[in-house]
């Protein structure tokens, strides 16, 4: 079940959706890229269809809908604390299949890790509805197929695919949530049998090890990244599944008795992430941090929650200023793991510590 709309019909659709939902979508910012005269695709709240970027992969993920870079948790006034207010209108988030899979990983941490549900995450999460952007082809560095995140079966209210047909752009929508039909009818949509597009092969391929033996943690493969990685943390900030934060207190200069506690996105690659009182620090080298990050994505999260954290969006490879390829590291870990397992089998399966 679905609808087909013309360019003007799509504009109408967004206009009517916007009257009931806040729309959080990828937006192409001209000239705002990291280098002179380059563009960047970020997430932002939009008012019109024209603002929504459907063609390019977004450089940053949708996760800011749930985990803003900086989020005020509550305000302090002497002995009182007050939770920060939140815009309680529902939000429509436009995202691709990999990102919708990433949502499950965010939920793992914020709703399922430990016995406490994170209330600041939950209250934002409850407001979100998802619009799946179809992927007719893979982008550079994508490897969603190997991570099993190329296909999405549920969790979206409708999907969107755009295609050039002659002079015009035609928009196709698969609409599993029938409560949205009225919006499409109102925008002059033609009923059609629509299935969203999805990627079935990617140029970048990864071999994910079933299990990473402890010995691989000490493998020399990580040393390269002590030399190459500059610890900037960009890979964490663009990652749809990186969830870490640091608490930060801010007080107002005009009134030192009033302030707020925030949480800000944190990076396990950046200095200071593990610092304990008195100067203690864990994982001092960039190589150790790379190992910590990579193994979390392809092994450690899975041990705890049953699924790998990485969804194969490839944004970390897109963004790295040192051209470090994370997908390449996965393959190196696979090879190193195989080597250890083979050596173990040759030894007659004796347990290594």
């Amino acid at each position, binding site marked *: 079940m679905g609808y087909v709309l013309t360019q003007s019909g799509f504009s109408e659709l967004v206009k009517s959706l916007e009257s009931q939902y806040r729309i959080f979508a990828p937006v192409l910012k001209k000239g705002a890229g990291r280098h002179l005269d380059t563009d960047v695709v970020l997430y932002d709240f939009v008012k019109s269809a024209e603002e929504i970027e459907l063609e390019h992969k977004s450089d940053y993920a949708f996760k800011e809908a749930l985990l803003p870079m900086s989020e005020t948790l509550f305000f*302090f006034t002497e002995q009182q604390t007050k939770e920060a207010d939140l815009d309680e209108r529902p939000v429509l988030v436009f995202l691709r299949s990999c990102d919708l899979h990433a949502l499950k990983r965010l939920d793992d941490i914020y709703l399922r890790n430990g016995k*406490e549900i994170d209330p*600041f995450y939950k209250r934002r999460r409850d407001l979100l509805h998802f619009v799946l952007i179809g992927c007719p082809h893979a982008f550079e560095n994508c490897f969603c197929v190997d991570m099993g995140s190329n296909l999405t079966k549920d969790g979206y209210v409708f999907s969107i695919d755009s295609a050039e047909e002659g002079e015009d752009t035609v928009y196709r929508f698969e609409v599993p949530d029938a409560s949205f039909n009225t919006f499409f009818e109102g925008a002059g949509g033609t009923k059609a049998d629509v299935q969203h597009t999805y990627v079935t092969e990617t140029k970048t391929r990864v071999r994910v090890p079933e299990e990473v033996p402890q010995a691989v943690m000490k493998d020399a493969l990580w040393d390269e990244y002590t030399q190459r990685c500059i610890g900037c943390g960009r890979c964490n900030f663009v990652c749809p599944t990186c969830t*870490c934060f640091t608490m930060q*207190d801010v*007080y107002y200069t005009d009134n030192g008795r009033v302030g707020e506690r925030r949480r800000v996105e944190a990076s396990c690659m950046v200095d200071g992430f*593990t610092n304990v009182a008195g100067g203690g620090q864990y994982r001092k080298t960039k190589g150790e941090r790379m190992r910590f990050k990579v193994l979390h994505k392809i092994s450690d999260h899975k041990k705890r929650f049953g699924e790998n954290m990485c969804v194969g969006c490839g944004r970390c490879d897109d963004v790295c200023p040192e051209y470090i390829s994370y997908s390449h590291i996965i393959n190196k870990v696979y090879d190193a793991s195989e080597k250890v397992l083979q050596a173990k089998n040759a030894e007659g399966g004796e347990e290594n510590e």
Partner: protein
Amino acid sequence: MNTAVTNANPYIPFPSEILDVVKHTQKEYTFRMKFEGEVRPGQFFEVSVPKFGEAPISVSGIGKDYVDLTIRRVGRVTNEVFEHYKGQSLLLRGPYGNGFDIDLYKEGETVVVAGGTGVSPVRGVIEALSTMDNAKDKYAIAGFRSPDDMLFRDDLARWKDRLNLILTVDRAPEGYEGNVGLVTKFIADLPLRDPSSAKAVVVGPPPMMKFTIIELQKKGFKDENITVSYERKMCCGLGKCGHCRVNSTYICLDGPVFNYTEGKLLMD
């Protein structure tokens, strides 16, 4: 676990009255905080000082309506606590983490090895051991940097009479009459009947823990009989912020207390 003041929002701290302050050294005080609820030694609270932030502090003592928090003045938050605690309450969140299971150490021989502020989380364990009927089978080796750095002097004096306490300092001025040397020095000579079944608890700075465990293993201790407690930066205490994760383990949820068979696999 129920706390005295329950907040719907676990990030919002509750005020707790400071009942007493014991000054051990210039930098280390124990704050007795009003608290009613279930707590175990080895668990921790987040001490929250608006404007300065939060710091995870382990529980060093437990009473019917209080918990002791031994705080070392080493950072922004703890500095502020020391400057402005007088007549005040502190904001707390917690308790967090698993803590020690005292029942594990009831039977047979037990050795607690603790260094410096590592004595805080095991103070409750040593206290419990000292009141057991078989306290003569219980050993505590407590090491401090120098005689001036000693914590819990009153407790140390009391424990000395009840269990086998070895108190040592890394270095001392001339004329000091007590033991001088690292805690590791005293393990080989412990007069244990059966090290292969004896239990051990090890808490302290990472190098001290590493070499203490090597000594215990040499002595004949089994890994599964060794308990350790790890220090990490615990920012939220709730398993969300990610700072304390090691491999697939969250120190704030699954620890900070671990059986060594599990603890030895944790690799930063």
